[in-house]
């Protein structure tokens, strides 16, 4: 429960969609698979917030800092950062 409370939404940016990106289901499954490799207590389907696949590749997921660090080290990941709030100007 505590680990779950520590989770924040992170963005995992992976660049251009790959040639084999497929549709939403394929991308979502691939991203969930990546997530499952790092998640300690949560299920990937509960953690995944968005699968970006139409114009670029990546996903947003609820992670703790440790899980985010592990994802940042995975092949195919450009950057991982906390989804912060921007403001209207």
């Amino acid at each position, binding site marked *: 429960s505590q680990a779950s409370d520590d989770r924040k*939404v992170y*963005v995992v*940016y*992976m*660049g*251009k*969609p*790959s*040639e084999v990106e497929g549709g939403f289901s394929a991308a979502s499954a691939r991203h969930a698979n990546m997530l499952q490799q790092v998640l300690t207590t949560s299920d990937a389907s509960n953690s995944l*917030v*968005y699968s*970006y*696949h*139409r*114009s*670029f590749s*990546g996903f*947003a997921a609820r992670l703790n800092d440790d899980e985010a660090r592990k994802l940042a080290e995975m092949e*195919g*990941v*450009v*950057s991982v*950062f*906390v*989804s*912060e*709030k*921007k*403001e*209207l*100007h």
Partner: protein
Amino acid sequence: TTRSWDFMGLLDEASRTRLESDVIVGMLDTGIWPESKSFTDEGFGPPPPKWKGKCQSSSNFTCNNKLIGARFYRSNPVEGGGDILSPRDTEGHGTHTSSTAAGNLVAQASLFGLGLGTSRGGVPSARVAVYKICWSDGCSDADILAAFDDAIADGVDVISISVGGSIPREYFKDSIAIGAFHAMKNGILTSNSAGNTGPGSATISNVSPWSLSVAASTIDRKFVTKVKLGNGKAFEGISVNTFQLEDKMFPLIYAGDAPNSTAGFNGSLSRFCFPGSLDMNLVQGKIVFCDEIGDGTTALSSGAIGTIMQDANFLDVAFVFPLPASKLDLNAGSKVFQYLRSTSNPEANIEKSTTIDDLSAPFVVSFSSRGPNQITLDILKPDLTAPGVDILASWSEDATVTSLAGDNRVVPFNIISGTSMSCPHATGTAAYVKSFHPTWSPAAIKSALMTTAFPMTPKLNADAEFAYGAGHLNPVNAINPGLVYDATEIDYIKFLCGQGFSTNNLSLVTGDQSNCSDVRKTAASDLNYPSFALSIKTRRLVSRVFHRTVTNVGLPVSTYKAIIQAAPGLKVTVRPATLSFSSLGQKISFTVRIKAKTAGKLISGSLTWDDGVHLVRSPIVTFVN
């Protein structure tokens, strides 16, 4: 808007309808009020065939042939705040920006008679697609990226996002920079607000070179609100006051004399009209004089019938308040205070606002964020400025004028300020250029906007290009720039290699085998950018050569001569100094050597290519960082 497009000389041209109607403007914002007259679809045919988007319609939200798409993105659960899971705008901001960029012509638009005129966007015949990313608790990166992901794939032509973070981020750790990069890859220019954290130096946070960063400046219409005192004197304050008080005098009280002492406040706190600091028994039915600008809610909730505020800041922008209000500068404020202290029964009245011509316009407003760019010092930001002060445009009727407690005014048009308001002017202009030149790249369109901008003067903005970039948006000339500084994805990749990004990351971003060891790493100063910035660490003589290439989009056969302007301390040499073109699309490269010894903080200059028809102007800035 009812004035800003006229102010820039862009008049309505009915013949533009067919070309503009193929252009789709993507608005990433708070959603939209679809019932606004700015978005009715009378005279519009079906969406262009390239459109792949959708309308997340529900029982009370529908799109039409003007508003062709609407989606919403919410990664966190909705927890109050008036948010509804719909593209419907409950805030007003997204409706305002959308109508500024691409709203229909609407006659007799005003805010209770203020700013009366025909409202319009930059491209009234273009289509609008909205992507709601902002809610009562802000705009999350995850939602922003989801919207970019869809907008790019949906087929929009230009993206507008009047949103930003508190500090600049590395390019691939910034949702807007990432989204704008992939938009650029797909031929879509992203227009982005500079931010409202000025006038301090280095306050701009949206700085990616593949997007357009827009500062905010004034137009020649200024809202003033007269304050009349019981002694017959009158002072002109700055506010948008829609209220008409009775034509009589009301008791005036100094907030410092009305502390809510039962709540622990004394006069030294209540004078600023802090929340809860005023004694209702003392201010009820009176006009309260406060020593600082606020949002007016303290006075309103305390039963005051109006408020007069004095403040040394925000003298160049008129805010709207939920009760009769006027803001005075300290000079006028001190006179009001003297009057308060000179009589036992002080009285005042606050008149409804009127407008005056502001002959000093345009200048960049104080709140507009300033350069230099802290991520890449040698890329000048902001890129240009556009109208962003006291802009009247459409509003959501699910919101009130100020969205503050006690404000019940529901209106179809509202007057607000921000780089949020300037950004859609640049968006609309980019869409306007795109309608003339559908094949131009985002960089070419951006170049057209920057090199045709009206030059501005440091007499009104001492921080010069750090306030206004290339100058003031000029929609009429932007469609015919003569030359453009074009750039494609590979140019930005070379730039990113030069910025130290790894080959591995860049090959992921591009999806190919981009390798920084295979391409010439481009120094920031050599990105084919329509402006020149040279940062210096010390105040010694520095020299640098900038490489540029221009593409002829003007007359097929033409000869351009370089005109250099340089302030003392700056020496600029262009080689060759004459460019001769024999065909459209022809590219010619040249170098610009800048030698500078910066005595002060910043030295300005410019390079203008002149063929007798076109003036292709780029600002040059040297500064000590």
